[in-house]
């Protein structure tokens, strides 16, 4: 029994390193603000919005590719998972697409689900094409995840299948369709919207890009640098140990052994992480998602980067060696050694610069400028944007852009001004 309660606390402790597991019950915190802090603990200096406490989420799954084609090591990932939150009567419907390496039920997704449900939408949530469950269920074994235009094709295919399924199984009636996504999911939304202009399955009424990268390559280069094991591994490792021991000391000084939202904030306050340390945590969490992604790609595409090529991995086999191999790869390596060669196999004349351009909003700039159904919301201090990229977004979206001064990367989804903005933008899908 003990062990179970220990586990519970481990989970809570684990969540505390993720942005908005630190949920609403304490309205504001007194941490010193920085864009990194907002990215790690959420923009907790602003008051939380009044969102529903819980939702009736219908967890669903759908067979996209024959289950026997999925490797045994992913026995728990057979069928693609997604969720539906249904209004009682017919209502507008919105699809939400998760960010890099995130699932349909991530904490950030939950905040967005609450906002849109509150505004009267049916909500369908999909995992990112960079999330293992999506990768191993996708019929795609040709284009690397992150290739935005091709990702959009597969997402669009999945959206059509999922829409047919919820009509048949849950009698969902949609008055109209909208689309949104955060981080990488925001960039995906833009490419899907373009595809829909041609295929017209949904005729999206509104499309909202939330904290999207302008250039995938630029953004991941920034995140790679936060946790650069190639450059100075001992320093990064030592910093990690130091963070752990300070958390441990702060926890020892705390009166109760419980973790709750208040105590997590005060732990963070006592530990007083430096900017470099916050960056390390962000970089490490990004590295964990990219390890998961690279493993899933390896298994699905038989690329043999961190797993044995031509080997079928059993469900009981040790994967520790793959994890250790993955710890050495940055996203930049993945780009150079996997995405570029793949793309060059299709078209030998393509250069790295071409590919960087193709995996960015620049590639569909004309469409984004002209299409008045596409909106943008981001933060002036979003850490995944390079110098000049906020201004670029502003110039493309002009009055369809809302840029908050603070919030870091996706740190304000459950905060008052952000939720009010979504409400004003969407108005229950009525205008």
């Amino acid at each position, binding site marked *: *029994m*003990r*062990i*179970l*309660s*220990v*586990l*519970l*606390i*481990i*989970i809570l*402790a684990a969540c505390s390193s993720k942005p908005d597991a630190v949920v609403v019950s304490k309205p504001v915190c007194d941490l010193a603000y920085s864009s990194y802090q907002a990215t790690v603990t959420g923009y907790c200096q602003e008051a939380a919005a009044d969102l529903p406490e819980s939702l009736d989420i219908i967890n669903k799954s759908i067979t996209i590719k024959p289950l026997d084609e999925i490797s045994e*090591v992913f026995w*728990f*990932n057979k069928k693609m*998972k997604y969720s539906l939150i249904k209004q009682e009567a017919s209502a507008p419907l919105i699809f939400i697409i998760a960010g890099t390496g995130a*699932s349909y039920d991530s904490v950030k997704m939950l905040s967005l689900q609450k906002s849109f449900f509150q505004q009267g939408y049916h909500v369908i949530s999909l*995992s990112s094409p960079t*999330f*293992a*469950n999506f990768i191993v269920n996708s019929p795609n074994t040709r284009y690397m995840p992150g290739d935005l235009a091709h990702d959009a094709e597969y997402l669009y295919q999945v959206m059509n299948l999922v829409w047919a399924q919820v009509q048949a199984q849950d009698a969902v009636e949609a008055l109209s369709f909208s689309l949104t996504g955060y981080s990488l999911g925001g960039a995906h939304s833009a490419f899907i919207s373009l595809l829909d202009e041609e295929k017209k399955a949904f005729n999206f009424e509104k499309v909202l890009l939330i904290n999207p990268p302008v250039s995938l390559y630029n953004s991941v280069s920034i995140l790679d640098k936060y946790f650069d094991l190639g450059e100075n*591994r*001992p320093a*990064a*490792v030592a910093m*990690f*140990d130091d963070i*752990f021991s300070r*958390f*441990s*000391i702060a926890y*020892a000084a705390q*009166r*109760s*052994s419980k973790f709750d939202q208040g105590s997590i904030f005060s732990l963070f306050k006592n530990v007083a992480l430096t900017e470099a340390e916050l960056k390390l945590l962000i970089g490490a969490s990004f590295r*964990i998602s990219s*390890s*998961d992604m690279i*493993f*899933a790609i390896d298994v699905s595409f038989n690329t*043999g*980067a*961190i797993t*044995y*090529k*031509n*080997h*079928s991995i059993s*469900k*009981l086999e*040790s*994967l*520790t*060696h*793959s*994890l*250790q*191999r993955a*710890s050495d*790869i940055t996203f930049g390596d993945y780009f150079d050694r996997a995405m570029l060669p793949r793309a060059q196999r299709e078209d030998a004349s393509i250069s790295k610069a071409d590919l960087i351009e193709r995996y960015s909003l620049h590639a569909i700039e004309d469409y984004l400028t002209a299409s008045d159904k596409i909106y943008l919301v981001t933060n002036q201090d979003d850490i995944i944007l390079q110098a000049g990229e906020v201004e670029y977004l502003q110039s493309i979206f002009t009055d369809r852009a809302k840029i908050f001064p603070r919030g870091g990367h996706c740190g304000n989804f459950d905060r008052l001004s952000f939720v009010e903005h979504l409400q004003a933008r969407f108005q229950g899908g009525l205008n």
Partner: protein
Amino acid sequence: MSMLANKCSRLFVIALCFLLLACTSQPRLESTAITPIIAIPDNLAELGVMSAYADPWEGFNRRMYYFNAKADEYVLLPIVTGYKQITPDVVETGLSNFFNNLAEISTFINSLLQFKLSVAGETLGRFAVNTSLGFAGLIDVATPMGLAAQDEDFGQTLGFWGVKAGPYLVLPLLGPSSLRDASGLVFDGLADQQVMDELGMKSEEELYLSLLNSIDARSRLPFRYYGSGSAFEYDYLKLLYKKYREIQVAR
């Protein structure tokens, strides 16, 4: 009854030793298999936390992890769902409080064994207040009064006295543990047993109570096997467990 239990536990220990040593988790490679492009870093120590914890019983542990995931899905969670459906929320909370209150006893003993007198005092205070004013622990009146919940177990006591955690061990149904913490669990179990005997319970009543305690504990735990969707979940959880216990012991 106790003879039988003794015999069973001896058999269990023998089976466990056999399983721990017999299982391998090393890949059985096909003749066409090709070594991964990315090499394993030469100096594993440089990986820091990612390689800080050896796992000599990995073969057994991975099997047990898989077993636990299946048992959770097909046995434990359905029971928990049923329990939540038939039990009103007030009753659920009451029972949780009740079991938490019983657990204060082993927290009390273990904080004494570590000379943590203030923790012991606070725990004793909680137990006294909740048992009397809180109707045998059904209502938690101590927390609002400012008496904070503490958490000490015999694994931590052993850690306090310098016993190393030993190899990582995944226990059937209970999940992540270590050689030291699993031994501690036996001690804490004995203490709980003693309490129930003191209360003059019959063995089948004890059984029902333990079952209910387990169901309650599982229902409060939001963890879902493979909820992370990651193939590396086993490795991540091992790391988290080891780190978390270090922090707890240091407390």
